[in-house]
């Protein structure tokens, strides 16, 4: 067993600062040299390095043989943000037999592993197998002797190089204080089989190190014994002193007693002398031993340094020797070449002399020939001139004859061709006339038949028109039902994903895995290429489409993918570029980047970012919509509106540069940070510098959500940053706006939630005797006050409480409380016709203080009076009764149920509180920013 404590050392727990610094330096060095991608951390131990790599964005698989260490690592992972934890997996395994397919990792780390394993060659062969071509291996081992019960071998620089070199090309090999670390790149063709072997020099040195270590250990033991003796003597002295004090107390007074006291004092002096001499002796001995120990340690460090220097010198010597051999070979070749050149020079000299003599004779003959040639040349030139004139005259005549003959041939051929064509045309027209007459006869027959069929069809159409209304109603009902089912499916899926990502599930998975090691672990990602045996257990997403606009069928995006393979980034980029083109040509004068933490845009969801997005799309304004997904294997959604581009949060960071820098043809650019995510922290001011008006829209009190176990990504620093740096900050309620103002030290506007006027109303008026009490929305006990609801139900047994929603806790409910499950908007509207009153019974507290429930607007739109617990934002809303105590709430139920809201006032209020109004408000705020410009240091984003 290894008993690794890297996590403690890294975090400085129970270790001295020097050990912490060394551990951090080593891990950071490994991280700095670790390329991004799919990482295997072999011998991951407590997962410290794996977690660091996952935090910076890598997908990491940690493997170790120690179950305790892996359990510890899993515990660390469980405390990480969900997106980081999703990139981490810890698996138990043996490094010599890895259960991964070939080439499935981009890089691997073997930190302090090779000194522990039985066969380091087998481990390296496995690492070579699982690394992709060109993959990187990082290895670190203790440098020199480091006594540890589990260390099977000792490494020096050259030894580690020899071990790695057959399979990995060493790119870097360095000493990190007490360790040696190497960076290697996987060789395509291994140079041999790796094996650990000490050279003779290393073996000799190791012996000396071991001897020095044994001597040092002996000295340490002696020091310990001396310390022990010193402590014993000190204790005995203290005991004697105590006894002497007792005796004095008992004997004080008489002479005999004084004698005894004197003797005892003398005895004490003797003991003190003895103690002092022992102490001095022990201290001197200890100092002496420490000095010798220090000398041994220095001697050992010196030896190590010399060995390291010898390595360097040896490498230099090898390079020098190679260079010298090369130079000698070059010199030998050069000498041979010089001899050959000398011989060639002598031969060339003799040849030159012969040539000079011949040249003299030739020169004399040449002079005579030149004279004769001069007269001949003059005669020839004269003849050439005459012949040229005659030839030109002949060529002209020939060309004239050729042209005339060609014209004649062309005219004859054209005449013959025209005659042939005319004859053929006459014959064709005769045939055509015959065919047309026959066709006319056929058409008459067909026309008579068709006229008869048309009369029959008219008769049937009349009957179909009568049944059309009935079918349309049925279609609406089915669509509403489908909407509901879709919503439920999405919620179930979210619940399953949450359960699977919960600590309990992972622990259960590990437990299952341990009980049945042969079976795949459902909590772990499935290896590439392995498909589940049956797909029926995996929920699939159904998307309810709005009818596509008739005008742009070609621009409709493709249907959602059904495979689990992530969409390649290049494909997404292509889609984005097409969207930018459409966005530039869109009619609206604003373009929106909605960085939302909700699901993608779908009909069954009605939260704030989706509602705002719908309004912008309705105005012809393009929207880039970021949404949250749990895994990158989830298919990308489609939406019929070509002005909407939806991007999951794992892809959005790769697209932001392109979106922020795109040319949208002069449209005003609005960026909504709809939740305080780290990506927005990194992006906000960069977007502002690119001309975007940035908005932080505080739509809930995330801090309070985090306290009840939701919004696990929440980081208070991030929210404070966004509040301080955004151009515009809005909040959905006055209390939340005040909190944001305090947080950021700046004014914050209230831009509350609102009504979607398309929210359906009941097809029949509400019954006058309606006596039910209703609620729709989340039923989680994190904010839904079940105690209050049950108290109300018991206090009013004559009333039926209908609750539509999901995520209710497991409770025994009274008979007059009915759970209806998740219903679609149409069903809710119809159901509300039987309600006398709508409730919002949330737990009082800071979470509710900040909320502006969207359902308030919907209840009022349905014509219902509303009874709510303490929501300060809603206190002045018409038709809403806000209560504070449970007794007040319960007592108010019959009063509010019997009241009738002022319908005209409610209608007028709702008309002023639609999502259109909210978008108008944002347009106005953005206009102010553009008009006024930025303040303070944010001015720097605009100045060039």
């Amino acid at each position, binding site marked *: 067993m290894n008993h690794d404590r890297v996590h403690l050392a890294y975090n400085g727990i129970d270790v001295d600062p020097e050990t912490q610094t060394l551990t951090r330096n080593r891990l950071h060095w490994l991280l700095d040299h670790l390329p991004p991608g799919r990482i295997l951390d072999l011998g991951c131990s407590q997962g410290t390095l794996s977690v660091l790599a996952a935090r910076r964005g890598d997908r990491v698989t940690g493997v170790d043989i120690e179950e305790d260490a892996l359990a510890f690592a899993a515990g660390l992972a469980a405390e990480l943000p969900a997106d980081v934890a999703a990139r981490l997996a810890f698996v138990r395994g043996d490094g010599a037999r890895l259960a991964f397919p070939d080439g499935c990792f981009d890089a691997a780390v073997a930190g302090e592993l090779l000194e522990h394993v039985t066969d380091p060659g087998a481990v390296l062969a496995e690492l070579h197998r699982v690394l992709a071509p060109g993959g990187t291996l990082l290895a670190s081992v203790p440098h020199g002797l480091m006594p540890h019960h589990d260390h099977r071998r000792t490494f020096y620089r050259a030894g580690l190089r020899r071990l790695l070199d057959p399979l990995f090309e060493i790119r870097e090999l360095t000493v990190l204080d007490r360790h040696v670390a190497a960076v290697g790149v996987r060789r395509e063709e291994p140079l041999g089989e790796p094996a650990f072997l000490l050279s003779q020099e290393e073996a000799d040195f190791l012996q000396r190190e071991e001897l020095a270590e044994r001597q040092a250990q002996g000295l340490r033991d002696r020091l310990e014994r001396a310390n022990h003796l010193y402590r014993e003597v000190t204790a005995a002295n203290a005991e004697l002193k105590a006894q002497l004090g007792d005796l004095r107390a008992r004997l004080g007074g008489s002479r005999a007693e004084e004698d005894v006291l004197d003797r005892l004092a003398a005895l004490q002096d003797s003991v003190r002398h003895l103690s002092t001499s022992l102490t001095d002796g022990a201290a001197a001995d200890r100092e002496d031993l420490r000095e010798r120990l220090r000398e041994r340690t220095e001697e050992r460090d010196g030896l190590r340094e010399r060995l390291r220097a010898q390595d360097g010198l040896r490498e230099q010597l090898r390079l020098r020797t190679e260079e010298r051999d090369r130079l000698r070979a070059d010199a030998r070749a050069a000498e041979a070449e010089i001899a050959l050149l000398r011989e060639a020079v002598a031969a060339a000299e003799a040849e030159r002399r012969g040539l000079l003599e011949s040249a003299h004779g030739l020169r004399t003959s040449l002079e005579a020939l030149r004279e004769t040639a001069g007269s001949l040349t003059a005669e020839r030139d004269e003849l050439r001139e005459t012949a040229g004139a005659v030839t030109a005259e002949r060529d002209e005549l020939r060309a004239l004859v050729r042209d005339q003959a060609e014209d004649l041939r062309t005219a004859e051929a054209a005449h013959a061709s025209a005659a042939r064509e005319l004859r053929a045309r006459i014959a064709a027209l005769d045939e055509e006339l015959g065919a047309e007459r026959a066709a006319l006869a056929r058409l008459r027959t067909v026309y008579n038949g068709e006229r008869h069929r048309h009369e029959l069809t008219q008769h049937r159409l009349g009957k179909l028109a009568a049944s059309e209304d009935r079918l349309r109603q049925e279609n609406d009902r089915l669509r509403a039902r489908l909407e509901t089912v879709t919503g439920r499916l999405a919620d179930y899926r979210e619940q399953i994903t949450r359960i699977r990502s919960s600590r309990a599930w992972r622990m259960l998975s590990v437990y299952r895995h341990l009980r049945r090691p042969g079976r795949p672990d459902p909590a772990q990602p499935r290896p590439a290429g392995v498909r589940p045996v049956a797909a029926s257990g995996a929920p699939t997403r159904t998307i309810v489409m709005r009818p596509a606009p008739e005008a742009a069928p070609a621009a409709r995006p493709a249907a959602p993918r059904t495979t689990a393979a992530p969409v390649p980034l290049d494909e997404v980029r292509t889609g984005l570029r097409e969207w930018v083109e459409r966005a530039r040509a869109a009619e609206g004068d604003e373009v929106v980047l909605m960085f939302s933490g909700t699901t993608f845009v779908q009909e069954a969801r009605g939260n704030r970012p989706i509602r705002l997005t719908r309004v912008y799309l309705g105005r012809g304004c393009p929207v880039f919509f970021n949404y949250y997904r749990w895994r990158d294997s989830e298919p990308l959604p489609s939406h019929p509106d070509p002005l909407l581009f939806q991007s999951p949060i794992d892809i959005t960071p790769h697209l932001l540069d392109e979106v922020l820098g795109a040319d949208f043809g002069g449209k005003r650019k609005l960026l909504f940070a709809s939740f305080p995510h780290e990506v927005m922290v990194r992006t906000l001011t*960069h977007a502002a510098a690119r001309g975007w008006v940035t908005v932080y829209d505080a739509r809930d009190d995330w801090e309070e959500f985090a306290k009840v176990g939701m919004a696990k990504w929440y980081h208070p620093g991030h929210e404070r940053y966004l509040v301080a740096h955004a151009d515009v900050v809005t909040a959905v309620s006055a209390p939340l706006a005040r909190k944001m103002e305090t947080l950021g030290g700046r004014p914050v506007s209230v831009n509350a939630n609102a009504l979607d006027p398309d929210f359906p109303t009941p097809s029949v008026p509400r019954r006058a005797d309606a006596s039910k009490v209703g609620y729709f929305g989340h039923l989680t006990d994190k904010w839904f006050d079940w105690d209050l609801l049950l108290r109300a139900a018991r206090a009013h047994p004559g009333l039926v409480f209908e609750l539509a929603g999901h995520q209710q806790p497991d409770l025994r409910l009274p008979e007059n409380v009915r759970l209806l499950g998740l219903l679609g908007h149409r069903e809710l509207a119809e159901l509300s016709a039987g309600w006398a009153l709508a409730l919002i019974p949330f737990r009082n507290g800071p979470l509710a203080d900040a909320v502006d429930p969207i359902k308030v607007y919907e209840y009022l739109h349905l014509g219902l009076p509303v009874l709510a617990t303490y929501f300060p934002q809603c206190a002045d809303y018409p038709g809403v009764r806000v209560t504070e105590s449970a007794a007040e709430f319960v007592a108010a139920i019959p009063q509010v149920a019997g009241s009738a809201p002022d319908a005209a006032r409610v209608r007028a209020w709702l008309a002023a509180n639609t999502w259109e109004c909210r978008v108008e408000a944002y347009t106005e705020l953005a206009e102010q920013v553009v008009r006024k410009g930025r303040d303070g240091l944010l001015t*720097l984003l605009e100045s*060039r």
Partner: protein
Amino acid sequence: MKVLFCYRYGVIGGVSTQLLNRYTHFSAEFEIGVLYESDHGMVGHFPPGVARVAGTDEAREAAIREAEPDVVVVIDSPGFLSAWRRAGSPGSLVLEVHTTTANLSYLDELVVRPDHVVTVSEYMREKLAALGLSPISVVPNCLDERWYAETVPPALGTAPVAWIGKLDGHKRWRAAADLLDRIATARPGVTPLIVGGYTAPASEVAALTTKLATSPALGAARWLPRLDYDLMPGLYSAVAANGGLTVSTTTDESFGMSVAEALVRGCPVVAPAVGALPEILPEEALYPPGDWAGAAERALRGLADPDFRAALLSTAEAVRERTHAEYALAAFREVLQRSAKSSKVA
């Protein structure tokens, strides 16, 4: 003469900006080519065909062989050194070292012997000479035209104290945040400004936002994780014109590019006496590494005392001359010509 520059990352700014400057000035005289191991938007800044990406060992080797260069300049890229050797060592090799001490380890195991070594400061020259490398020429980094362009600094209504850098231990961002906190506490009315950190790990981002949220004096601080390089000259000018200054907390600098940039724009700097910084900063601007009280004291004086402020800028003119493209490029041209000669002699 064919000159081939080889560098790892085609990233806008830093070394790539230097390469672009060199291309602009040398392309009339020499035939210039640029090779990157990977590109992040830089290749498109060169005319077509000038810059290429060679992503693998084989591609690098083939590209060097194909280029048939007279001089190959490899800038802090061990991958290109081995590729040059495998390609048959064409032309003469110039090794250019910009990286700081912490990343010099690759020089311990050089697979080739360069014909010439170029670095950016005397400090680096000494470091490299200690490793046995020679001959070494110092060619300072240069700044392009935009650093000399006139700007109209906006009135910010506050005196900014700026820190520019990545959020890592090398630049000591934590110490920087605490130093800014200390300065803002002692002198209300200044506003801390942190620039950089876009690529920092999530843990560092969370740590910085926590610091900004929990240190009262940093409450008004502004953090710009990412700012286009084009905006930087204007930023330094605005900091200077509003009575602010720049502080540095770095552990080491081979040249001190951001310090030089600030000085060129007339923005006073207070920095630790490490690396090459004493070559470009006056003594008044330098504090002993780790002496945060001394750093704060200098910064506060720089904010309040015009004479001291002038003293902090006393080397600005010299830095302006030294980093001017003409100066740096003339020095580099000499290196190229010497290397080409030695290549022909060989």
